[in-house]
């Protein structure tokens, strides 16, 4: 095999990593380098240092340690049967790249994943060693996210949690049947148990220890997961059900939805099509409704017999249009839970409405100053001097509040 330059390896191993949706660098505990004299800090929100023309943020150096892999998951560019070029970083190379990029303020930190070579423990061991070296030898206080290999030993997971801000394990696909079909060597049972172990470790370490009364550091940014959507025929209803189960069971910070994207040298088992980006977007919106707006997973799709989210309008508006009996709501009286259900009112706007109405009664124009677009909100609320009258129940309401359908800019 020809010897690859560092630049060639970087090209191969970042190309191989781009199908992982997560680039978040948020949720870590606050820390900086003032005392250590090293480099790196994490503050409350992550920073996106650049954006690629696919609209995704570039916050972390997202690479694979190697794209050699013994698994043959048909949706993955790195599956063992793929003809993609293979490469492998050394531990030193990853450490140096991370530091060099960080010192130039290109990145917030490292998101390291890997194909599985030899054994899960071998691969995970090297990943943990990279994190250890960065933290201990180079006093690096930037963000580190390690993708955990489900089959690796518990000791390695514990070490990983010591150095990493976030750990994640991909559930790969929304259903176990899907995993069996498209990733035949992966075991959904093992993935679940690994997530469960991670949760109990995170729970355990978040309690102050009896002896020192301090909390031991263990993945302060929690755990997350990713599932590929559109690679099989799973409907949105099942996907959301899986997500709500995952959030409740393993206390995940995030579930990432990754629209199945055509890959070079793709497998015959998969649909050859453009990635369903709008569907992905709607799933994220629905996910937000579940986590921040008090929606139950079954409510969101209750009016959609096919179990699919409406691609033309957002899921909250879709829900409101089919639950009009609940509206209009009086913005000067309704409680927080109810206001969160009004299309066009986000969590921040609702907070400000509640604060402001302690001091004055809100008119429609007041609400208009607080939110993005009053046109969407108007039919669903009553304010001082404003009542929507028959508007709430008018037959063509969707046309009045929904944006013009537009072609997605895929190509």
């Amino acid at each position, binding site marked *: 095999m020809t010897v690859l330059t560092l630049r060639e390896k970087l090209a191969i191993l970042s190309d191989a990593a781009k199908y992982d949706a997560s680039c978040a660098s948020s949720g870590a505990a606050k820390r900086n380098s003032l005392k250590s004299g090293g480099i790196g800090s994490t503050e409350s929100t992550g920073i996106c240092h650049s954006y690629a023309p696919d609209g995704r943020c570039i916050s972390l150096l997202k690479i694979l340690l190697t794209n050699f892999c013994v698994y043959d998951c048909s949706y993955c560019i790195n599956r063992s049967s793929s003809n993609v070029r293979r490469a492998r970083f050394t531990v030193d190379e990853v450490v140096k790249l991370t530091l060099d990029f960080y010192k130039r303020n290109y990145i917030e930190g490292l998101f390291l994943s890997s194909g599985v070579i030899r054994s899960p423990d071998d691969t995970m061991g090297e990943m943990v060693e990279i994190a250890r070296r960065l933290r201990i030898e180079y006093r690096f206080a930037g963000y580190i996210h390690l993708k955990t290999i489900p089959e690796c030993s518990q000791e390695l997971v514990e070490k990983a949690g010591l150095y990493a801000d976030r750990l994640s394990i991909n559930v790969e696909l929304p259903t176990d049947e899907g995993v069996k079909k498209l990733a035949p060597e992966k075991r959904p049972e093992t993935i679940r148990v690994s997530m469960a172990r991670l949760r109990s470790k995170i729970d355990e370490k978040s309690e102050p220890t009896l002896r020192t009364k301090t909390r031991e550091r263990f993945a302060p940014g929690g755990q997350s997961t990713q599932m590929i959507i559109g690679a099989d025929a799973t409907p949105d209803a099942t996907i959301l059900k899986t997500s709500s189960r995952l959030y409740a*069971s393993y206390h995940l910070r995030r579930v990432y939805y990754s629209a199945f994207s055509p890959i070079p040298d793709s497998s015959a088992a998969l649909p050859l099509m453009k990635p369903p980006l709008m569907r992905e977007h709607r799933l994220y919106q629905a996910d937000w409704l579940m986590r921040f707006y008090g929606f139950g997973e079954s409510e969101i799709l209750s009016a959609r017999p096919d179990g699919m989210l409406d691609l033309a309008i957002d899921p909250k508006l879709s829900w409101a249009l089919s639950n009009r009996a609940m509206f209009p709501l009086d913005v000067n009286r309704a409680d927080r839970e109810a206001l969160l259900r009004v299309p066009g009112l986000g969590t921040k706007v609702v907070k400000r409405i509640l604060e402001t109405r302690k001091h004055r009664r809100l008119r429609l124009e007041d*609400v208009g100053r607080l939110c993005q677009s009053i046109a969407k909100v108007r039919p669903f609320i009553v304010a001082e001097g404003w009542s929507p009258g028959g508007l709430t129940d008018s037959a063509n309401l969707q046309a009045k509040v929904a944006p013009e359908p537009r072609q997605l800019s895929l190509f």
Partner: protein
Amino acid sequence: MSALAKSLPRITIRLAGQTDFDGWRKAARALAMREIPADQVGWVVSGAASADLFDGGDPCPDAVPNGGTAFTVPRSFMEAAEAVICHSDPERFSLLYRILLRLRREPDLLKIASDTDVRRLEAMAKAVRRDIHKMRAFVRFRRIGSGAEERHVAWFEPQHFIVERNAPFFVRRFTGMRWTILTPCASADWDGERLAIGPGAARADAPAEDDAEALWRTYFSSIFNPARLKVKAMQAEMPKKYWRNLPEASLIPDLIRGAEDKARDMIQKLPTEPAPHHARVKARHWPEPDVEPGSDDEGANARTIPELRAAAEGCRRCPLWSDATQTVFGEGPENAIVVFVGEQPGDQEDIAGKPFVGPAGKMLDAVVVEAEVDRSEVYVTNGVKHFKFEPRGKRRIHAKPNAGEVKACRWWLDRELAILKPSLAVALGATAAQSLLGKTVPITKMRGQVVEREDGLRVFLTIHPSYILRIRESADKEAERGRFLADMKAVKRLMAA
């Protein structure tokens, strides 16, 4: 008062610099004490181009007039003002002063988010915050020198006067580096120990290149997925005005132009033959089993508890497995004299894969020990071996297993009992009783009784310990615990019998 104010001559306040917050505060305070209306005051910055236009007014009244009362403003205003003073809008000083005046009569003004002045204040504070955030994101250091001489220098063009306000962030983050950030209006320099804010500079003062940029550009183009082109989304977050100082930005036009062809290629290209190494990898890591798995999935032939437990791992006898983490099988010695049967694993049992490790399990443990039941003679298990729940946010709400699920899972309990051959079983709660006896039993009525099954096994009926945990009234809770302890003492006697 207002007639008096109007008759006052126009006052011009000269500030020492664009972000002279202390100067503004001192002047604004003195002016407010005299209740001088905002439209009577002009604000200029020394050295700024427009400074001379406003010259000629009276100097700032620096003494507090007699009768002026001290006043306070909400902390939130001071915080917002410190940010807004960095805004590039020359009107900012005047706006801040106007709000300060209004706050004296309307102390809750800032909470009225729909007020026009408040909105403008917030919009300006937000613009400054955003500029600060973008500076943290888009500053690009270039390295010069090496070893002890190594330094990192950046050229950046912010929209507002934020360098001084933002510099501590770079100190916290790049403490171990020597660095300088140059901008047209100001510069920040950290020598490893001290932060110095200096005058503005020119782009030519910063280094023109850095070797690492070739790698960064490689990364930028490789991490981009051409099948997901979303140019607007990119530009919303990384507006073009920042591009000229970003080494990766010059790649963007070509990446966009080539994206369509690349994506189409990927879709149209037919799948190829598996890579040559694939067969070898498969043979080595995923050998076909020689014979059909001799394992007995249904556990019918299991002779020991570990064999039975292994068989139950993949149980699909009812649909509960699909939401649970794992089968939670029974635990305890194979020569146990008594088998405790609960309802089903809970949240913690599901996570740990062990029965009775949650709050109810701890309660059971404590009472069993108090009743002096020998733990080495006890086996614990559940009537239903997967956790049934409703997800609610970050919690799982326990759901009662239905008759079909209990019946399906009896298969495992029957086999556990057949292997263990205990002299006594304890049904903890209705579900356990239903599972052990094959029919529903009124637990509260029959509590403390022993029912003998057809196969001769004695079943002692009692409540589930979680019932005690749900009682809120502490006296009632204590009483119920006492009854449960009495039950366990009865169990102890029955074990000896």
